[in-house]
């Protein structure tokens, strides 16, 4: 979704009130949606078969990944095509430490595993800090292109560094401790981490810093004029987004039992873009809804057709052309109409 710089022209009280009403309506929609998703996520392991739980883990991890992306896109108004790099950095940080602890076997202790997961936080944050230092000097298309360039740079470093990262082969045998090898336990473990991360994301989005980001998105010049250090705010947000993506990546490796350089590639960076577009970038819950739809389609459409890219592409095309605000904007629009008709 192209986020254009929208001049804030609140010329009269009526217009101001309508903006606030719209904002409330949006925040109000995300609340029930997240609550519904949360309740549903509690019962996913009760569904028949193991596969829905496995898809559920994917949805949870990718939801967090997409949510981290939306800090940059939905709130800050910049399109990043390099978010996969931090997802991959988190995944590799955890995988490398797990491998070191495992020492050629597949066994790892709980404390060692949790430490390996925690390592993803500083690694991805540091990566985002270095990349963000250069990125926040640019906006718009230049920001997007440079984010992609940095993403590819990190991809090629991991791809080529055979002695450390395993190169193209990646790293296999990243097993969690015994109990968490059961998909149901790993699901609840992931759910707990994603729930905490989502709560933090929510708090960030509702904090003064979150509103500063919205202000940055709407008008950078005015934001600077009121005394906000734009670059500092953008950098902080970029590091936060990178860190959340890293946490998502950290959960990915032990779930898949392996990591590969494709996790840092541009295709991986594209997935949160699709998810956010599908769900709706203007809503906190948008990326979570998008991740649910995108992952379920990816997991189940391939059972019935080899034309899965066409299927996904068609859905995205329809959404971009006819519902540029995403699925939640349709629901939001309908609710607003109902509310309007009741009021009238």
């Amino acid at each position, binding site marked *: 979704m192209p986020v254009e710089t929208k001049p804030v022209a609140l010329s009269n009280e009526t217009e101001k009130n309508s903006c606030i009403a719209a904002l409330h309506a949006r925040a109000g929609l995300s609340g029930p949606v997240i609550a519904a998703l949360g309740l549903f996520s509690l019962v996913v392991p009760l569904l028949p078969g193991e596969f829905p739980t496995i898809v559920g883990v994917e949805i949870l991890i990718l939801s967090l990944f997409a949510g981290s992306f939306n800090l940059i896109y939905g709130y800050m108004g910049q399109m990043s095509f390099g978010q996969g790099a931090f997802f991959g950095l988190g995944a590799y940080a955890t995988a490398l430490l797990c491998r070191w602890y495992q020492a*050629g076997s597949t066994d790892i202790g709980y404390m060692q595993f949790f430490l390996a997961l925690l390592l993803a936080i500083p690694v991805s944050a540091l990566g985002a800090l270095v990349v963000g230092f250069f990125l926040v000097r640019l906006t718009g298309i230049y920001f997007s292109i440079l984010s992609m360039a940095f993403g590819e740079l990190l991809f090629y470093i991991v791809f080529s560094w055979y002695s450390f990262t395993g190169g*193209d*082969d990646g790293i*296999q*045998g990243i097993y969690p401790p015994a109990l968490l090898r059961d998909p149901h336990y790993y699901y609840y473990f992931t759910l707990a981490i994603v729930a905490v991360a989502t709560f933090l994301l929510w708090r960030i989005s509702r904090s003064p810093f979150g509103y500063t980001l919205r202000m940055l998105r709407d008008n950078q010049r005015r934001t600077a004029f009121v005394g906000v250090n734009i670059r500092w705010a953008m950098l902080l947000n970029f590091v936060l987004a990178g860190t959340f993506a890293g946490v998502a990546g950290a959960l990915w490796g032990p779930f898949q*039992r392996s990591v590969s350089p494709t996790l840092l590639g541009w295709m991986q960076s594209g997935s949160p873009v699709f998810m956010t577009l599908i769900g709706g970038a203007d809503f906190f819950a948008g990326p979570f809804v998008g991740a649910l739809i995108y992952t379920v389609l990816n997991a189940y459409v*391939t059972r019935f057709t*080899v*034309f*899965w890219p066409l299927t996904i592409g068609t859905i995205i095309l329809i959404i971009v052309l006819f519902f540029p605000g995403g699925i939640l904007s349709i629901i939001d629009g309908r609710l607003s109409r109902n509310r309007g008709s009741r009021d009238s």
Partner: protein
Amino acid sequence: MGDSDREGSWKNTVDLMNRAVSRRDFIITSGAAGVMTMVPRFARAQSAEPYRIGVLLPTTGSGANYSERPIKILPLIAADINSRGGLLGKHPIELHFRDDQTKPDVGAREARSLILNEKVKTIIGTWSSSVAMAVQEIIHEHKVLMLTATSNSSKIVNENYTPYCFMFGPTSGMQSRATVVAVTRLIKEKGWKKYATLGLDYEWGRDAQRVFVENLKKASPETELMKELWAKLGETDFTSYISAVMALKPNFLFGAIAGKDNETFLQQAKGAGLFKGIAYPGVFLPVTELMQQAKTLPRGIIGINRCPFFANMDKPLMQKYVKLYKDKFGKEEFPDDFACMYADALNALDQGATKAGTVETEAVRKSLTGATIETCQGKLPIRDCNNQLDCPSYLGEVVDVPEYPFPIFNPKTMIVVQGHDVWVPTCDEVRALQKKRS
């Protein structure tokens, strides 16, 4: 979907397969490949439970080129086995096709989906070694068999070894050592002294180059390596590498380049005149490339491949594969190396089940480990310490022959290097590499 609908789908599939092969048809037939082999299930209501096999190969991306013929031949082999009632004469084979998109995480997810949703007992695939190793973790955990051939990193049978995975083609290490055997012979014949290498900068390319250089140093220590050049995967412009090699003027260039990159390099190198003064032994030229580049492939270069039909037309199973393939897809069509290796893999499963007297995974696994099986290259043993088929590599000069509408390796001078001559010499050395799951 009712049975009549499914049978209708199958008829459409057969119709499509009978047509001339186009890219579009390939995608459709590959998508319906699983349906085709389900037919005997409906025809034999009294049969025992079907034996479900997942086929995990890419239909998109660079791997699609080498996956087309395996996807087309597997239903034919399955149908052939099913015509005898299936495995053990009573378990008809069902093939469930999935696109791994050449992405390890997608491969892992699809493997889980095949195991958990389709209840497959065996997975055949993949193309990329990184995908294969990601899938290995899943099949090991779920104790499902994996039969692989195209993805051939040595790690699959060594560092990442699992007893549930069987390799039906020579590994990258075996192929590199086979090239050394052939090149050492040529060094003596032609008095070569200096060489350079050009490899693709990823695992297969690195692995192939490293093994070649290390082994050539042992076999011919006086031969000097002038320079190592690395091109990125998916390179479209090899001009700078070609110029660098021509400036160095080595006696020969060793290339570790495969797929579309290989085709691109060969065309650009041919145009630049590289092959006029510099020999190029050991270029990976599977039958796929010989057929697809029939008009443009430089004659005289020395290629290597894994399972060429033209070198084994005296073997009954190869005759059968070629006949099945030509009957279905036309006189001008031949199975490539990958099709033959995967056909062997499916036939090996049949033989393993017969030997075990059951289709239970553990029993079939044990019966295949260390077994000698009938393949399209003759009777070959499977190494008991890493499940590697003792299969040869083929090196030869690219020449035209009247029998085929594309070049093949010169039958008179072709060098066949046996698998056991070039694999990791002893099982103790293999086991030393297999620490992970020991």
